[in-house]
């Protein structure tokens, strides 16, 4: 057995069935071993896509996603995907080839200091110097990736190590004296949290991506206490979006009710979220009346990082929430709910009445036609925010988007990872015309593996989100955001890959278009031509607080 074969053996022992990657010289022994291995490899057309697919694979299945790349350019193409996975806590193991040991540090062909380059974008990384270390390192990498706060781990393997004779053992256990995540919350802190809750008059529960595996516990706790629930971008689905206690997302493009509730609450119980600046806005003005902030997170470094925390609980969201639910009593919140209901009535999420097709209408049409049963991925921009507003996620692990890094081009590769993880699920990628074009080459991957992903491009002919900011903050000086003059004919583009295309330009054809997309068996690329100058509202301008919220589109009249 050589190092590469030992690597494959170790992956199989970790239960790996699918990997995403792209070959090259320095990883060839691994690809050679893969040829005989009971692992399905998905050939992507750019390594960034492999990393995003692996991250999405984890997010929808809970299993560690794996990606492969060759040395130098291949490995560096993973960097964005790894950074994205780190920010959004996706468990990914990346395996890269490197030049032979003797050439490391000599500027050899396709050499790059990959462990150095990925240090800031991984939870941990390894440069393997002996084939015999491989099984131990693989075991550690998977353990680190999926435990504690999930994250990406990279294993860089010089080519000669892949070819070296393997005489080592496959360990059963990991021994990492410096790594021990705390999973059980401190009972004393949990008691304190419950006591504080009972005293609160206007509490809110905020849940983030760290709570996605704790949805049953979150629901039990929320329903027992009757507390208003505010899921963040990654928390959407951790609590049902159509549940009467759900106020919707907070933050920059959050609902008025969610943001007002945070602004006027006297207690925040935050579970598995990190108080990102897109959620808090100006920190000094965040939740000014909250006398108590309780923060539950498995990563101690997140607790108290940005928002001063009165009751820190370091532990796993599922375990801690279960204990909170067990100890909680119904709270008397009638007055608080009356206030919240009034905000909801006064400021519902509205789709403005306009003579042309708008993005939210398309999103809602898909939600209605699918009964909310799809797994949804997205690009980054206005369309992404419209999904958060108009697609109520009722189930966990059904929404995969790039939050922390905000990576355009995430949608299609993520849909690939999601579809591989859940072959029977309906997977829809809501994408922007800008975002889609950053990784559109992955249409080839859909074709090659017959992945029936539905790509729904919300084509507004602009880098819409940037255009919106230019409109609001730069006097409509639309600098370098116009795409319509050079966008491809998306249906023809799909056809070039052998994928059927659908195009809808008018509202009257919306339902038919949606049916055409959902009625197609394999992959589809659908283009919905939406209005050029839509805006996402409500909006809190960057650096503002809930008081600075722009509730509705400030333009009186939008030209059709």
């Amino acid at each position, binding site marked *: 057995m050589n190092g590469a074969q030992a690597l494959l053996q170790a992956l199989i022992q970790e*239960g790996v069935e699918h990997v995403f990657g792209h070959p090259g010289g320095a990883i060839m022994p691994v690809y050679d071993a893969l040829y005989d291995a009971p692992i399905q490899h998905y050939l992507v057309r750019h390594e960034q896509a492999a990393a995003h697919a692996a991250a999405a694979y984890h997010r929808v*299945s*809970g*299993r*560690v996603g794996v990606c492969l790349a060759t040395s130098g350019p291949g490995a560096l193409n993973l960097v964005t995907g790894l950074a994205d996975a780190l920010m959004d806590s996706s468990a990914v193991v990346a395996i890269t080839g490197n030049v032979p040991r003797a050439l490391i540090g000599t500027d050899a062909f396709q050499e790059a200091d990959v*462990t*150095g380059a990925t*240090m*800031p974008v991984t*939870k*941990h990384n390894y*440069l393997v110097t002996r084939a015999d270390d491989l099984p131990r390192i693989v075991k550690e990498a998977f*353990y*680190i990736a*999926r*435990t504690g706060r999930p994250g990406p781990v990279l294993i860089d393997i010089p080519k000669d190590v892949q070819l070296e004779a393997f005489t080592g053992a496959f360990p*059963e*256990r*990991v*021994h*990492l*004296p*410096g*790594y*021990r995540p705390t999973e059980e919350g401190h009972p004393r802190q949990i008691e304190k949290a419950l006591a504080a809750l009972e005293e609160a008059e206007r509490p809110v529960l905020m849940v983030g991506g760290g709570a996605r*595996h704790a949805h049953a516990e979150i629901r039990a706790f929320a329903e027992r206490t009757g507390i208003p629930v505010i899921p963040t971008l990654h928390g959407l689905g951790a609590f049902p979006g159509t549940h009467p206690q759900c106020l919707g997302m907070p933050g920059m493009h959050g609902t008025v009710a969610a943001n007002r509730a945070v602004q006027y609450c006297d207690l925040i119980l935050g579970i598995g979220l990190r108080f990102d600046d897109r959620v808090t806005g100006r920190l000094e003005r965040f939740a000014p009346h909250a006398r108590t902030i309780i923060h539950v997170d498995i*990563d*101690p*470094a997140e607790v*108290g*990082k940005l928002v001063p925390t009165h009751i820190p609980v370091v532990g796993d969201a599922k375990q801690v929430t279960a204990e909170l639910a067990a100890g909680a009593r119904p709270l008397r919140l009638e007055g608080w709910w009356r206030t919240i209901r009034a905000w909801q009535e006064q400021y519902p999420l509205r789709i403005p009445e306009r003579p042309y097709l708008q993005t939210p209408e398309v999103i809602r049409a898909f939600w209605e036609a699918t009964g909310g049963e799809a797994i949804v991925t997205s690009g980054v921009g206005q369309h992404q925010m419209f999904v958060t507003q108009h697609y109520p996620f009722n189930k966990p692990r059904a929404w995969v988007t790039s939050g922390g890094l905000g990576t355009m081009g995430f949608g299609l590769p993520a849909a690939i990872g999601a579809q591989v993880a859940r072959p029977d699920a309906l997977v829809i990628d809501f994408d922007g015309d800008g975002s889609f074009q950053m990784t559109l080459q992955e249409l080839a991957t859909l074709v090659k593996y017959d992945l029936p992903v539905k790509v729904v491009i919300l084509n507004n002919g602009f880098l819409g989100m940037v255009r919106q900011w230019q409109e609001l903050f730069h006097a409509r000086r639309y600098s370098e955001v116009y795409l319509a003059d050079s966008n491809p004919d998306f249906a023809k583009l799909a056809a070039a890959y052998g994928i059927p295309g659908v195009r809808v330009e008018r509202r009257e054809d919306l339902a038919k278009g949606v049916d055409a997309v959902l009625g197609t068996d394999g992959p589809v690329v659908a283009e919905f031509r939406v209005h050029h100058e839509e805006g996402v509202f409500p909006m809190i301008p960057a650096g503002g607080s809930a008081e600075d919220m722009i509730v509705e589109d400030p333009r009186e009249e939008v030209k059709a």
Partner: protein
Amino acid sequence: MRHIVSVLVEDHPRVLTRITALFARRGFNIESLAVGRTHQPGTSRIAFVVRGDDHTIEQVEKQLNRLVEVLKVTDHTEPHIERELALVKVHVAGLEERLEIREIAAAYRARTVDVARRALTFEVTGEPSKVESFIEQLRPYGLLETMRTGAVAMSRGVKALKPREKEAVREKEAV
């Protein structure tokens, strides 16, 4: 506030890079840094001096603890011993200066480690403030070269910086 923090780490390649990169990325400013092996094979100990309020120091500690190869972190607030070593080379203009300089060195218990016609080199150890003050005393004579190791620290008494007690971790099912 000035803090001296000790970190016990596994002695792997790039551990120091990981730590300094973390400081750089998080915007923590290191005043001094000293590293060396410990008596326990496979572990090294780092001492660094950093300035910041309680929040910053808490963040430094928490971020360090996230690193897989970090075994233990201590911010020395309890009674502790702190030392720094410096080599200081000073210009000697004439006999009178030579005598003065030697007198200063004696007061600081600095050892003469090199003697030349126009220069004296001393080795001085002590609390960083003492090293600082020694250097300041010699400054008027013309400092030619100084090299400081950065502070090292240890708690007093029987207390020692040890890895957290841990068992080899049993494999747990994912999800």
